[in-house]
C-alpha cells in the first residue's frame, strides 16, 4: 500500500462505500479527518487498515459495548421502578405479566437500536471521529463497519417490535404513548440545531425518559396511569436530563468551538457550570420531595440523602473545574451515570421494602 490514507468527496463513487465499510473485503477505512462536514464541499480522509490487523474483541463484547450498558439505567430503570411502585407501593396487581416481561425486553432492544442508529448516524455525519469521547466508538475503532452497525440496529428494531406487540395488543392505548415516544426519539435526531440549543432536545429527553416512560410501564402493567406514576416519571425525567447535561460538560470545549447541537453548548463555561450546579440542587430537592410524596415517611427521605452522595461528588467536581478542559471534568459523565444509578437503586430498594 503506497499510502495508508485516502481523501474522498461525496461526488466520488467510493465515498459512501468507504463510509459504510463495504468497499473491500480485506480493508477497513477508518475516518481520521473531515472538512466541511455535511456540505457539498465535504471531504473525508480515511486511514486504510487491513481488517486482519485490527485487534477486535468477540462479537458479543462488541455488541455489549455498542448497546451502551452504562445508559440502560436511564431507560430500564424508570420502567422497573414504576412496576415496583405499582406492586409494592400502590398494591396494584399486574394484569398481563407475560406482556409486561415482553415489554421490558422490547424496551431493551429499543434502547440498543436507538444507540446503534445514533452511532451509525454520527459516523455518517463525521461527528464521532472528531470527538473520541462520543458514542460507543465501535465503528471508529474498526471493530464493526457502519453497515454492520446499521444492520444490527434494524435487527434490534425488529426484536423490539416483536417483543412490544403483546403489550400493544393487550393495551391499545399504549400505542398513543409509543407514538409520542417515537416523535421524541425522531425529534432528537431531526430538530434544528437552533431548537436543540434552545433546550427542545432536553425537553424531549425529559418527557421520553420520564413521565412518558413511567406512564407506558404503568399502562402495560395495570392498564391505567395513577398520578404517583407521573410524579415518579417527573423525578426520573429531571434526573435523566441532568445526567445528559453533565455528560455534555465533558464536551463543552468542543461544543463551544464546533457549535454542537446541545443546550449546554449554547452557554459559556461559567454559565453552563452554574446551570448544571443549579440543576443538581433542583433535582436533589425534587427527588427528596418525590420520595416524601410517595412514601410519606421522613425515614425514607433521610435514607435518600445517602443515595444523593454520588451526586454531591459530581457537584463538587463541577464546582472545582477551572476550565472546560480541567481534569475535574474527566469522566464526569460516567460519574453522573453512577449517581443516577445510585438513585435508581435507592428507589428500587425503598419501593421493594
Amino acid at each position, binding site marked *: 500500500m503506497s*499510502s495508508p490514507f485516502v481523501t474522498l468527496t461525496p461526488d466520488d463513487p467510493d465515498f459512501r462505500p468507504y463510509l459504510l465499510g463495504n468497499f473491500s473485503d480485506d480493508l477497513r477505512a477508518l475516518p481520521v479527518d473531515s472538512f466541511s462536514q455535511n456540505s457539498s464541499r465535504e471531504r473525508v*480522509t480515511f486511514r486504510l487498515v487491513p481488517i486482519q490487523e485490527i485487534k477486535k474483541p468477540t462479537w458479543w463484547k462488541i455488541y455489549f459495548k455498542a448497546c451502551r450498558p452504562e445508559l440502560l439505567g436511564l431507560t430500564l430503570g424508570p420502567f422497573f421502578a414504576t412496576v415496583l411502585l405499582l406492586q409494592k407501593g400502590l398494591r396494584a396487581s399486574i394484569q398481563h405479566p407475560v406482556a409486561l416481561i415482553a415489554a421490558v425486553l422490547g424496551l431493551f432492544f429499543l434502547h440498543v437500536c436507538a444507540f446503534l442508529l445514533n452511532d451509525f448516524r454520527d459516523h455518517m455525519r463525521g461527528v464521532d471521529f472528531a470527538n*473520541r469521547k462520543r458514542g460507543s466508538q465501535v465503528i471508529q475503532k474498526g471493530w464493526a463497519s457502519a453497515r454492520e452497525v446499521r444492520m444490527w440496529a434494524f435487527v434490534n428494531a425488529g426484536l423490539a417490535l416483536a417483543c412490544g406487540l403483546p403489550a400493544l395488543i393487550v393495551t391499545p392505548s399504549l400505542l398513543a404513548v409509543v407514538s409520542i415516544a417515537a416523535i421524541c426519539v425522531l425529534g432528537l435526531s431531526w430538530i434544528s440545531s437552533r431548537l436543540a440549543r434552545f433546550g427542545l432536545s432536553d425537553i424531549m429527553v425529559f418527557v421520553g425518559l420520564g413521565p412518558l416512560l413511567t406512564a407506558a410501564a404503568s399502562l402495560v402493567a395495570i392498564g391505567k396511569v395513577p398520578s404517583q406514576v407521573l410524579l415518579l416519571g417527573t423525578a426520573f425525567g429531571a434526573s435523566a436530563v441532568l445526567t445528559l447535561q453533565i455528560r455534555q460538560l465533558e464536551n463543552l470545549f468542543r461544543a463551544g468551538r464546533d457549535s454542537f447541537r446541545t443546550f449546554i453548548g449554547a452557554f459559556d463555561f461559567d454559565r453552563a457550570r452554574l446551570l448544571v450546579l443549579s440543576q443538581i440542587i433542583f433535582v436533589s430537592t425534587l427527588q427528596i420531595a418525590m420520595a416524601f410524596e410517595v412514601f410519606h415517611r421522613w425515614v425514607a427521605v433521610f435514607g435518600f440523602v445517602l443515595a444523593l452522595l454520588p451526586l454531591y461528588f459530581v457537584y463538587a467536581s463541577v464546582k472545582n473545574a477551572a*476550565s472546560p478542559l480541567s481534569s475535574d471534568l474527566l469522566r464526569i459523565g460516567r460519574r453522573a451515570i453512577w449517581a443516577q444509578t445510585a438513585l435508581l437503586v435507592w428507589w428500587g430498594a425503598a419501593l421493594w421494602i
Partner: protein
Amino acid sequence: MSQAFQDLKIFDRDDFPKYLPKLNALYDDLFSAGKGFRSKLIQTIGKHLNLSDRHTRLLAQTIEFIHNASLLHDDLIDRSPLRRSKTAAWLKYSPEYAVLAGDYLLARVMVNLSRNGNLRLIQYTAEIISDLLEGEWIQDSLIDDWRVQLNQLDQVHDLKTASLFKWCLKAPFIAQENYDENLHQTLEEMGTLLGLLFQRGDDLLDFDIRNDEGKAILGDLKAGYLNSFGAFISRDFTVEKKDQLKHCQTLDEVKQMVGPENFISLVAEFDEMNQQAIDLYLHHAKSLEPMLKPSERGLIADLIQLPTLLYFRK
C-alpha cells in the same frame, strides 16, 4: 529551509517610537536571539507563491511580532526567569513593561496589516491572536493538574501552538487573495498537525530527548505542568505514582520511577504515535498538488520536510 532568507530584518528600531528608548531596548533583547523559524517558513512559502518582498516582510514581521508578544506574556505568566538563555523581559525591565511591550507588538500587527488593507488577512490574524490567548488562558488552568491527559493538552496546543503554524501556512495565500476553500482547509489541518508535532517534540526536550538545543531539563515538570510526554508516560500511573512523579527533581529519578528500559520503549511508542500524525500530514501535503498552480508546486517539497524537522528536530 532555504538559507537565503535568514537575513530578513524583522525588527527595526525605526519601526518604533524613538521617544520610548526602554521599549526599543527591550525589543532589541527580545528579537536578537530568536531562531525566527516562523518567519523563515513565511519566506519559503512566499518564494514559491512569488509573493512581493513587501508582502513577505509584512507577513514575516507579523508572525514574529505575534509570537514574541506571546513569549513576553508567557514568561510573565509562568514566572520564567530566562528566555533564550537571557534574563526574561519581565525580570530585566518590569512586569508592567513586559505586558505593555507585548500589547504594543500586537497593536503594531494590526496597524501594519490595516495599512496593507487586506480585510480577510486582518480578520484571520485577529482570530489567530484570539486562539493564542484562549490557549494561554486554558493552559494556565492546567498548572498543577496532575491528572491531565494527552487529548486535553492537544486541544490547548491546537490553540496555543498550532494557531501560529496555521497562520504561517495560510496567510501567504490570503495575501495573494487566493481563498480556495479546499486549499485553506487542507492547510489548516496541516497547521494543526505541525503545531501538535512541534509541541510534542518540544515537550520531549524537557525529558532530554533529542535535546541538542540544550533546553533546561524538567522545566515544565518542576513548574507544575505535566506536558504531553509527561502525560503520556504517566497515563496508567496510580495517584501515588503521579505524586512521586510530581516531586522528581532529576531526570534519573523519573527514569528510575518508570524503569530505564521502559522509559526508552515509551519514547519509541510516543515516536510511533507521532509518526502516524506525520504520515497524515504528508498525505495532506501531497494532496495540495491539484490545488496549487504549476509554478507553486515546488512548495510541497519544502512543506514535506517540516514535520521531521519540527518533531525529530533534524
